[in-house]
């Protein structure tokens, strides 16, 4: 009964959003209409929110007459996971996705005054997008299905790899980021419809876009961290198709923010900014399409259904046709006046757009090429790390070099480029000195490593000097840019060190014996079978001693979950600032030895730290009072 209320409220909300969409495009813009749109949208969202809250309540109270809850939750689960079970599969996560679009729209709605000229149509666009997704939810993936006449006594349990705090937060964060770009998209469309080039839609959307970008950044970082310790993959990035479809919106969003910072100040790069705002949003939708159509096999793939894929594809198609046609119609209006000055910040950022554009294009190619190849030649191929490394390493390094020189550039002014300015010289000297030290210390002649480290250090030193100057000489500095780019430098460094130093070995160890690996002595102390509430596990115990005589205990596990019979590997990780000792156990060999996989992952924490630092930079911008 209660579920029907929730279902009904969702349908009602769909109707209201449709109404808002229609009014905003049909009615003439008056103050009255603007108020009406704003109020109706808020009401629609509140209905939707109540519907969702009821749904959460049903999940918490184990209402297994709801099919979806019966399939994905269980009375044994802690409340936290009962709630997170809602987004552990397709229907519920789509529901959450919609709630988030509504939430962004709602907060935008109550924060922006009704006399803002772009607001009514922006809200209209958001409403129509909501209608599109709500119809998708209600028609192809209904979470409100009920089991009649007799509900099961207990549910089927959540997938065990998803019973993890990081994973309970990772999808919502990522979704918040993905759908957050509905705001810049809606405003861009509203701007194009409005057709007055003097309206500054860019100012309106900057903080919203940065906030969405922050969520996307944190979401991707969390996902990377989760895959590392939960899936037992032991790395931070796998170029998995679903990781790639999350990376594309991020790349597009990052380019968008850069481009936006130019368009906010002048009429330059407006074409880029609008195109990028459309790309970010459609790439986010494209990600949803890839994950939910089941077109790609991946760890992330949801139970798939071609109808869903078709619906989403058509939806993306319609959005693209409308927005791009609008763009072409208004092309002459957004064209810049005058040229960009050479070596000005604008010129550097337009180069940056090209770099990001090529990265996005190559990831797109990597994602689609195997699909097309399989279609044409009926053979499966996989495009993996070698392809992406070959493309990303040179482009990112060259782009970072441009970044290094762009620090001295000024807005709309030719840069009197002087190679012998002290900050440049000092950073170059410091970086060369550090690289020479590294060659001496690590005895390496790996050129990719040395160049990446060099470029990373250049950026870090250059921005440190800049930050120093801002403190001591009160020189103006954009804190957002400085922190984000410092994080980029740090990311380059930690990825380089990680790939140079990290090693892995599968050892075969007898119980009660010692194996040596690198500087570690690994003592296999114990192995036993443990029974837990919902799984049985084989739990091993290792004492690991490093060269300095410090001993750590690690106990990796292999679990078998009773309800689903799924086997998961629980890694044991010893964390220290410089390196992780990462152990998983495999199978027992015929001679009684156990296969144990030991990995030494250097600087891996720093990679995630860099991600967080980037997100931090975004937060700094959002809370900074000054215009940037």
């Amino acid at each position, binding site marked *: 009964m209660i579920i029907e209320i929730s279902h009904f409220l969702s349908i009602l909300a769909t109707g209201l959003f449709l109404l808002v969409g229609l009014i905003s495009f049909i009615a003439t813009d008056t103050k009255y209409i603007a108020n009406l749109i704003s109020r109706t949208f808020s009401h629609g969202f509140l209905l939707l929110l109540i519907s969702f809250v009821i749904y959460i309540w049903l999940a918490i109270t184990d209402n297994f007459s709801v099919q979806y809850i019966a399939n994905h939750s269980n009375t044994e689960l802690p409340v936290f996971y009962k709630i997170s079970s809602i987004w552990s599969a397709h229907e519920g996560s789509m529901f959450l996705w919609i709630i988030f679009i509504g939430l962004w729209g709602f907060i935008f709605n109550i924060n922006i005054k009704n006399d803002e000229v772009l607001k009514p149509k922006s809200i209209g666009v958001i409403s129509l997008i909501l209608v599109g997704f709500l119809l998708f939810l209600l028609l192809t993936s209904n979470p409100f299905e009920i089991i009649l006449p007799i509900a099961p006594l207990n549910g089927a349990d959540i997938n065990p790899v998803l019973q993890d705090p990081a994973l309970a937060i990772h999808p919502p964060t990522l979704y918040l980021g993905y759908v957050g770009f509905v705001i810049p998209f809606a405003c861009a469309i509203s701007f194009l419809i409005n057709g007055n080039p003097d309206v500054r839609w860019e100012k309106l959307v900057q903080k919203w876009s940065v906030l969405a970008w922050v969520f996307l950044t944190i979401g991707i970082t969390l996902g990377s961290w989760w895959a590392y310790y939960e899936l037992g993959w032991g790395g931070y990035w796998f170029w998995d198709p679903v990781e790639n479809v999350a990376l594309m919106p991020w790349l597009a969003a990052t380019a968008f923010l850069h481009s936006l910072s130019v368009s906010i100040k002048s009429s330059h790069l407006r074409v880029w900014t609008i195109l990028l705002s459309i790309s970010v949003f459609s790439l986010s939708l494209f990600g949803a399409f890839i994950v939910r159509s089941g077109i790609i096999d991946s760890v992330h793939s949801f139970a798939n259904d071609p109808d869903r894929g078709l619906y989403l594809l058509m939806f993306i198609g319609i959005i693209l046709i409308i927005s*791009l046609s609008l763009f072409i119609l208004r092309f002459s209006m957004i064209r810049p006046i005058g040229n960009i000055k050479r070596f000005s910040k604008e010129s550097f950022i337009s180069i940056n757009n090209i770099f990001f554009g090529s990265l996005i294009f190559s990831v797109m190619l990597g994602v689609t090429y195997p699909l097309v190849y399989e279609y044409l030649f009926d053979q499966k191929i996989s495009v993996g790390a070698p392809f992406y490394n070959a493309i990303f390493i040179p482009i990112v390094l060259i782009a970072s070099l441009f970044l290094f020189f762009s620090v001295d550039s000024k807005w709309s002014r030719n840069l009197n480029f002087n190679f012998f300015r002290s900050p440049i010289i000092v950073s170059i000297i410091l970086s060369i000195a550090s690289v020479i030290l590294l060659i001496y210390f690590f005895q390496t002649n790996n050129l990719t490593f040395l160049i990446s480290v060099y470029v990373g250090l250049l950026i870090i030193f250059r921005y440190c000097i800049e930050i120093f100057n801002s403190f001591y000489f009160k020189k103006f500095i954009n804190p957002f840019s400085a922190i984000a780019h410092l994080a980029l430098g740090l990311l380059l460094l930690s990825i380089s060190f990680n790939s140079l130093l990290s090693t892995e070995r599968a050892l075969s160890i007898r119980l009660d014996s010692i194996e040596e690996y690198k500087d570690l002595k690994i003592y296999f102390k114990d192995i036993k079978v443990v029974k837990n509430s919902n799984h049985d596990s084989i739990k091993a115990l290792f004492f690991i001693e490093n060269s300095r005589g410090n001993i750590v205990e690690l106990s990796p596990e292999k679990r078998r979950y009773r309800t689903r019979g799924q086997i998961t590997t629980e890694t044991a990780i010893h964390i220290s600032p410089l390196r992780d000792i990462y152990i998983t156990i495999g199978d027992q060999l015929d001679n009684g030895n156990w296969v144990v996989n030991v990995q030494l992952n250097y600087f891996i924490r720093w990679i995630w730290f860099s991600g967080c630092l980037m997100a931090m930079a975004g937060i700094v911008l959002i809370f900074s009072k000054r215009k940037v």
Partner: protein
Amino acid sequence: MKFLFKSTVLLLPLAFIAMFYILLTEEDAYPGTDYKTFDVPKFQLENLENTKLIDNDEIKGSFILNVWASWCITCRVEHPFLMNLKNQGIKIIGLNYKDERSDAIQWLDKYGNPYEITVHDLKGSLALDLGVTGAPETFLVSNGKVVAHYQGEVNDAIWSNVFLPIIKEKGMF
């Protein structure tokens, strides 16, 4: 130039959409079909009657390899169609899969034997090498190479849509 830019902006994404549309709707009309070509794995197994050993040299030329078992209900459904094929003069080799010898012989006696030779694969070792997931499954073999593989019951529709095009293309039988 401007026109070129505008049309690229509009057409490139739409081309992507169209491509995904084709990929998505290119539903395998007959799921379970695989046209991967590979050599018939090396094997040496007894025939069903336990009168001699069969290996790769015993089965030459073009034929259909049908995986079946007396415990498999669908095989019983498929059986009349195989008899039909046999009467058309198509060479069928049986792969009796994880089955009791006596049960299998009884089954053939009762319903009729469409197979020129039946290989007895008690442990499913050849079936494993072939990539069999269950019974019935059917392979089209041309000169020691598997050229088509179908999981599930072969009937008129499957035969004319999955196997016949390949047979015509290669001029088999």
